[in-house]
Every structure is written in structure tokens, then in C-alpha cells.
């Protein structure tokens, strides 16, 4: 196990370094830079809500029907880089050789991206629906509610993704080992 951990550490460090770099990029990124996340999320939210949005570089996607704004703060970027870390950890842990370990990082980025789009769309959709239903609560509690919905949705998807991926990888790993 110690040997395995020793082999994994450089990849964990690379992932951590990439995570810090990506997090730093976010501080300077504009809506235009995050187009790759915002566009699909907005398209899916639009399809689910039957709403059309208007895009502007400084404001993001504005859905007039619902008076909501999808901008860089709602791009799912943080979720993406967090799920990237989680996936990297799992992929590296259950990799058999160096080639697989190297492939883990780009794979984790892609898997995280897909999960982020899915989870973020769900989060926004659920948030809009619930906030419409509970319009009797005052404005100050809306933010709190929004946060609670966001954490619950994201955490659930992240946990499910972790458990599911781990189970799949575990089976493959042991099958490969004892085959």
C-alpha cells in the first residue's frame, strides 16, 4: 500500500497544482472565458424552463421571463474543479500502471466537466422551481434558501458520482487483478 501511495503522490500533487492554477484562473476569468460552461448550462436550463436568454459579456445570460442571471458566479466552475479533484483521486487510486495514471488527469477533467454541466443545470432548475413555490418568504431568506438548495444538489451529485465511480473502478480493478 505504501508503494502504491508513493506512486500516487506525484499525480495528486499535479492535480492539486492544476486545481490551484484553475482556481486562480477563475479570479481573473470573465463570462466570455467561461463560455464553455455557461453556454451548455444556459441551453439546458432554457430547454427545461422553456425560456430564452439574452447574452452580454458583462452580465452573462439573462432570462427575462424568470428575471434570473446566469453569469460566471453560477457557471459551475468551482464544482467542476472540485469534481476534477475527486475523479483524479479515484482514477489514480484504481489505476494499474503509469499509462493509466497519466491518462487519469485529462479523463478526470472531462468527467468533471460532464458532471458539472449536469449538476449545475439541475441546481439552477431546482432552485428556480422551489423559489417560485416559496415566494412568501422574505428576500433575506431567499439567499439562504438558494445556498441550501445549491449545497444539497451539488453535494448529492458529487457523492453519488464518487460512490458510483468507486464501485465501478473497484470491480474493474479486482477483476483485472485476479483475472
Amino acid at each position, binding site marked *: 500500500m505504501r508503494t502504491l501511495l*508513493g506512486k500516487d*503522490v*506525484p499525480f495528486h*500533487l*499535479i492535480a492539486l*497544482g492544476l486545481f*490551484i*492554477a484553475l482556481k*486562480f484562473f477563475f*479570479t*481573473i476569468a470573465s463570462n466570455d472565458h467561461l463560455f464553455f460552461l455557461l453556454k451548455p448550462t444556459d441551453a439546458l436550463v432554457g430547454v427545461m424552463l422553456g425560456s430564452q436568454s439574452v447574452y452580454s459579456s*458583462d*452580465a452573462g445570460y*439573462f432570462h427575462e421571463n424568470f*428575471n*434570473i*442571471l*446566469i*453569469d460566471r*458566479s*453560477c*457557471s*459551475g*466552475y*468551482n*464544482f467542476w*474543479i*472540485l469534481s476534477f479533484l*475527486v475523479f483524479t483521486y479515484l482514477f489514480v487510486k484504481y489505476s494499474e500502471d503509469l499509462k493509466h495514471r497519466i491518462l487519469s488527469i485529462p479523463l478526470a477533467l472531462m468527467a468533471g466537466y460532464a458532471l458539472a454541466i449536469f449538476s*449545475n443545470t439541475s*441546481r*439552477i432548475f431546482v*432552485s*428556480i422551481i422551489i*423559489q417560485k413555490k416559496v415566494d412568501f418568504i422574505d428576500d433575506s431568506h*431567499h439567499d439562504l434558501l*438558494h*445556498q441550501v438548495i*445549491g*449545497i444539497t444538489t*451539488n*453535494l448529492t451529485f*458529487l*457523492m453519488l458520482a*464518487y*460512490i458510483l465511480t468507486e464501485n465501478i473502478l473497484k470491480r474493474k480493478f479486482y477483476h483485472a487483478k485476479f483475472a
Partner: protein
Amino acid sequence: MRSLLNPKWLFLINTIPVVIFIGLCYYQYSVIKPSLGVDHLNAWNVFWFALGSLATLNFGYVVYLFKEKQGVSIGYSFIALTCYIAFIFWNLSEPRRLIPSQVPAGIEKIDIVTYVGTFLMPTLLYSIVVLVLRFTPENKKHKAAPSFLATLAVPVLVFLFVQIILPLCHNIEGEYFDNALMVCFIAAILAFVFFFIRGVFILATNKKSFFLEYQLLWKPPLVIIGPIIGLLINNGYLPGLFHGQSSGPFGDFSSKWFYILAFINGLLLCLSNKENKWYRLFLFIGRVALFIFTLYFFIIFLPFLPLGIMLIVFFGIGLLILVPIGLFLIHVAALVRDFEFLKRYFSKPLIFISFSFSLFIIPISVTTSYLYDRIVIREALDYVCSPDYSVRVDIDRSSLRSTLDAIVGHAQQRRRREEFLYSKAPFISTYFNWIVLDNRTISSDKVARLEKVFFNDFTADSDRRNPDDVSNVRITDVDKSTKYDSTQMVWKTWVDIELTNLSSSRFLSEYKTTIQLTEGCWISDYYLFVGDRKEFGILAEKKSAMWIYSRILNQRRDPGILYYLSGNKVEFRVFPFTQNEVRRTGIEFIHKEPLKVIIDGITIELGAEDQSQQAVIESEDFIYISPKEKNKLQSINRTPYFHFIVNASENQKERIEDFTGRIEQFCKMYPKLSNNAKVSLVNSYVSEFDLESDWRSAYSNHLFEGGFFVDMAIRSTIVNAYRAKSDSYPVIVLVSDSIENAIWEKDFSDLQFAFPDSDFFYVLGKGGEKKKHSLFNNPTEALEFEEDSCMFCDSVLRYECNDGSVAYLKDNKEPSLILKKDFFTLNESDIKDKSWYSALAMKAKWNSQMLHPENTDEEWLGMVRASFTTKIMTPVTSYLVVETEEQKEMLRAKQEQVLSGSRMDGLDNETIRMSEPGFIILGILLIILLRLRDRLILRRS
């Protein structure tokens, strides 16, 4: 200790700080890049290449060590010391190389010297520690004394070298010699630190150490007395170094909290480690809570470590610089011992929770305090700059004082020194700027206004300028051409002006005058001849245009500018004029009725015969009444009543009897006006009472603090009277010994439409002396007070709207504008290019804004955009002629910055952002859940 050779430490100590350092530098670089010249850009390229190479090589080495499962080697330490010292030296030798002095003052600048030290010094220290470990092998016995002797020998040798050998080399000069000296000096520093750490290391690993047995002898001087003396010296309280200076060399640590925390921290570290589990748990919590304090000073002083040796040689107090580093080592050792003890009695999760909870006590306290300050400064700015006249606010003066001190950066000079961590303390100030001010700067004008309003402090008042130089530039010719636009049924008149500098002086002159427009007349174009070229004006956002104009003025290039001062007054400036120079300029006016405009004392008639067919123009939100229609309206006299505005500001308590007497006497003179009269007690706030109520007891119990905020009092009186729409109107009477120290922003022309009855207010001065002042033109200047039979009997015109409401209009021959609603939003379909009706709608919107300044942030951008669309100048825009393409580009960039800055601020409050939750909380929850899951699985299995 030997585990320090594990490459993970190199990753933590080098890679992470360097990545953060690169991030901070990149942020700085992106901000200042537009201001950099070629040399500085090249320097930045060198910087990126060097730092990038160092970071990459270091990271590659870490990965290699992990792969090969080896510890950090001696070779690495030598190479790292050489490379990083060279890099640090390159940065420190010329700090302006990367951030030049010409970077504008408003741009946030990092302290590159401190940052280089903070983020790279750990690598140097680590390299020395690696050398110590490698040169002190485990399998041999070592004595500490030789190392300590060598430590002492270094400063002694340096001293002898400086005193004996250096004077002998006075003939040798040159860059080579200087560099050789520098290398020797750095080598001496490294030797000093190496031997010092080695000595401490040998002592710490020796179980029968004298230091371990007699801790109470050496600990209190090092952990209690040392830090406090260090703070006292830094803050200039001890004679000698830095005595009497406003801020110490290492930062401003003058707050009493630094001393209190230093004492408690030292005390906790000196307390004996008894074998009682509850005692040790509480001791652990206390020590963890104050570890942030120790860590802070460790980080601050780490870059100054090399300075320690120099100060030991020259001043003997350099040891104090080493105190924070010693304190840090002792603190870490104490925490490790506590943890080792506690884990025998408590579960690890409990210790971990105690640790996490205690560690954040100080950061959370500071953050909470800053968040509160953030709320207070915003409330104060809203109150002073865009008040809601219907809401009473109460600002926490002590929080505001601290924030202003931090902004102005001269906390030391203030009387109040007890606030917690507000001065220019390294890192804390940056954190403060980020939390409280969002890293923005508050203009000095706004700071001066807050100082005046809340602290009656006029020292920072930038309005008190010297009177402008008298210019000898005069209008020598005026020509006009009028066209009637039959589609819009409005006049467009170009007024061409010839300006001549009649001055015999060889200095450059500026032309400056005020144009008084009438209602329904706006400026729709402007030009200025620059040489032989006719340059048309650019309509720009007002703040950007004025900023550019002032910059061009300093460069002595050709600008011309037009902007609204207040009400319908427009400032017109052209620069520069050489001796006897003649320049030509022109302004286009758009107007409905023929009218007269006075420019620099010359009356110019605009338009020909009255062709307007529409006497009244009515929309959903406003009504325009032409002079023709006004002629038909009934002239009435509304009932006047006194509204006394009493100076109840700082130091005015002893004037209670006097001021009350003046009011009573004035009421006796004009008994009719004392019916329904009102009294406002004015300091920073306005407290209004009926004269018939028990206002005297409120007056005697009043809190006399802050400035005499007359501007707010008069504005709220006018707005409240306008909203009441009654058949009476207030006669404003100021009761104060002097109005010079009252707080005025500008005149009240912007509210002229809301106060049609009178142009004046009155002052009951010393000894009951009565003076008259104009509300709409230089309010601080006293006019002659003449008592006649028709005092306070001004007439107004009564207009009945279709919905039955009544509006009162100024009884004059000029058009008037009535607001049907107090507040409305501009209809975008009304806004068209060069449209007079659009200008009317914008003016109505501006008037509405004057009644509701609290909506300025939300409405401002819309008003700027509407003005851009119509190309007609409004109070939020300005016509500006610039000479060069570079100036036009500068204007465009500044305008973009101003507009984008406020655009996000001004985003509709009700629009919901679908922000994702913070990833830290998500990460923590995920880890907790996964841990719980693992435990569950373990239990089941």
C-alpha cells in the same frame, strides 16, 4: 525533525507559496500593464522567465524525489540558495524596475519587496535547515557550544571587517568590489543563520538539555518581554530608533490589542504543562487561538531575517527581529507537546474540532468586525451622496472613524488609537481593503465629505481651494445660425464664438464661464478649432470627461469641455490660450421656444418668432408647460411658514438658550409665519419637530456631535414640502452664529422646480442679525436683508392636472416641467437621436432623480445611455473636444472602466443570480460525508 527532508515539505514550502506569488504578481501585472513602458515590460519578461524556471525546476525535483523515494539533498540546498538569493537580490536591488512610479496613484499596488521576501524566504530558510540536518548526522554526538560560538563569531568578524579591513580598501572602488562585498555579506548572513539553527537543533535533540530543565529562566524574556519590547521599539515608544515616528518600520502595530495579545500569548506559552487533561485541553485551545498571532509576526519578520545580523552588528537590537522566529518555533513545539499529551485522553476528532474552532477565533473576530465596518461605510456613503429623504439613518461613528482612518492611512496622527487592527499593518490592511472596500479607492472628496458631516473635521476639505486665477480670455465675436426643424417643431441654433486672450502674460490661459440655460433648452453639439482642424465634441460620461480634461490640462494640450454644474447652469472651459491667441468654438442648442442665453455677460437670442403650436406636452410621467400656457394660469400666494434649521452640531450645546431666544424673537416679529412653523435640529442628521411641540426638551437632550449638515437639511425641507403639495410653503431660516463651517455641497438649483415660491433663505446670525442668501446662486454669500411690506409674499402659478392633482409653478415667463409621478423609469422608446422630446424626458427623469437620490446607482447608467443615444448633453454627461487619437482612446478606455464599474453595481436588485455555493463548504461537507461512509463500511465489515 529529520522528516523535514521528505520532499512533501519542499512542495509545501516552495511550490505552493511560489504559485500564490505568481498569482499575485500576475494580477498586479495585468492591472498595471497599460501603464508600463518597454523597459518595464522587458523587466517583467525576465521576471516571469526566472520565476517560472525556478518554480518548474523545483517542482520537477520534488516529483523526481517522490519517484526515487529520496530526501532533499545538500546539492539542492546549495543550488536553491544561490538561485533564489540571486533572484531576490535582482528584485530588491531596483524595486521600481517592475512597478514604476508613473503607475497612477489610484491603482492598487503590491509591495513587491515584502512579497518577494514573504514567499521566497521560506525556501531559503528550508535550504539552510536541510544543510543543518545533513551536516548533523544522527549517528554522531554533537555539541551545541561550538555552533553558538560560531554564531557569535560571525557578527564579530563582520564588525572587525567593517572597522579594520574595509577602511584599508578605500582605494578599491567599482561595481566588482561592491558585488564582492555583497556576496561576502550574504555569505555571513547564511553562516550566522546556519550556525544559529544548528545550535538550537542540537540543544532541542539533546534530552538532558539545560534549556529544557530551566525553561522559566529563558522563556519569559523570549516570549513575553521580547515581543513587547519589539512592539514598543517599532511603535517609537522607546528612545532611540524610530522614536516619535508615526509608523514603525515593520508596519503600524500601535493598537493596544497587539500588546494585549502579545502578553496573553507569552503567558500561555510560559504556563507549565501539568498532567491534568482538562487543564491541558484549555491550554491547548488558548495556544491554538493565539497561534495565528504568532504565525502573523513570523510571516512578517521572516523577510527581515537577514536584516537581523546587520542590526546585531550595528545596533545590537537585531536579536529582536529574531524573536518572532524563535517565538514561532517555541509555539509549534508547545502545540505538538500538547497534542501528544491530549491524544492519550481524548479522541482525535475532538482534538481536531478544538483545534479548528480555536484557530479561527481571531480571524473570525477580525472578519466580523470588518464586515460590520463594510455595512457602516456603505450606509454613510449612501447617506451623504445619495440619501433617501424619507428614511432616518444612524451611523456608528466609532466604526466609521476607524474605517476613515484606515482609508486615509494616518491612524497614528489621530487621537483615537485603541481600535483593533485598522492601521497600515502588513497583510491585515490588504484584507481590510478587500473586505471593507472591495479593493476600491474612495475618492478624497467623498472622504472629506464624511469627515465634515460626521466629525466636523474640515482639514481634508478639498473644496476650499484658492479662488481661480482671473482669466483675460474674452468673447470677441459671436455669430449664430438658427434652423427650424418642422418635423420635431423645435429650433436648432449654432452659436459660433470667437475667443481672444487679451492677457499680456506669457503664461497659458484658460477660458472659463458659466452658461445659464432655460428650461426646455439643451446642448446638442459642440466644436472647437484645434489649429485649422474643426474638432467636434465627443459626448462622454461626465466623470470620465472631467478626469480626461484635468489630465490634458496638465499636459498643456488642447481640450475644451462643457458640463452641467447644477440646475440649468453649464460650465464652459477651453484651454490653452497663448498671448493674444484667437480661437474659435461653437455650441449647438436645441430648444422649443425662442429664448435668450447669456454667455459671459453677452445675451444671445436663440430662435426667431414663436412657431410652437403645442402649449402643453403631456406624457404618462411629465407635463411640459410653455410660456404661452403659463400666461393663462392663475397666480396665487401660498401661505408661508417658518422652517428653522438650527445648528446643533459639535460644540453648539452652550448656544441652546441663545438660539432658542433668536427663534422666539423672530416669531414675534412675524407671528403669521410662526403658525405651523417647524424646527429642524441639525448636526450630521436632521431631526424635525413642530414649533408647537415640545422641541425644546428634545433640543436640550440632543447629542451635539458631527458637523452642521445644512445641505441635507435644506434639501430634505424642500423635498418634503414638494411632496406635501399643500397650499403652504416653508420659509427657510438658518439659526447659527456662522455658516462658514456649515456643510454645503453646491447650490440648490437642481431642486428649483420643487421650490417655486422663493429664491431665498434667511440666516439668524450673532445677536439675532438677519441676512438673506440665495438658494440657487452661491448660497454662502450674504445678500442685503430689506424689510418691506411684501416680505414672504411671493406668488406662484397654479396648474390643475387632468387627474385632479395640483402643481405649483414658478411665476415667470419661462417654460416649466411638472412631474406627474415622483419617480419613474425612462421609457426607452422615447429616446431617439437628437430628439428634443427625448431631452425633455431625460430632464424629467433627472428631476425625479433629485427627489429620489437613493436610486442613483440603479438609474445612473440608464441616464448615461439615454444621453449617448440622443447625443444631447445632460447632467450625467459632458461634451469634450480632445486633440489627439491617443486622448480619444484614453477617454474611451476610462469611460468603459467607469461604465462597466457601475454597471454591475447598478444591476437590478431583484434580478436573482444563480450563484453556485462556495466550494470550500462543499469540499468540507464532502470530506465529512466520505469519512462517515468509510466508518460505516468499516463497522459493517
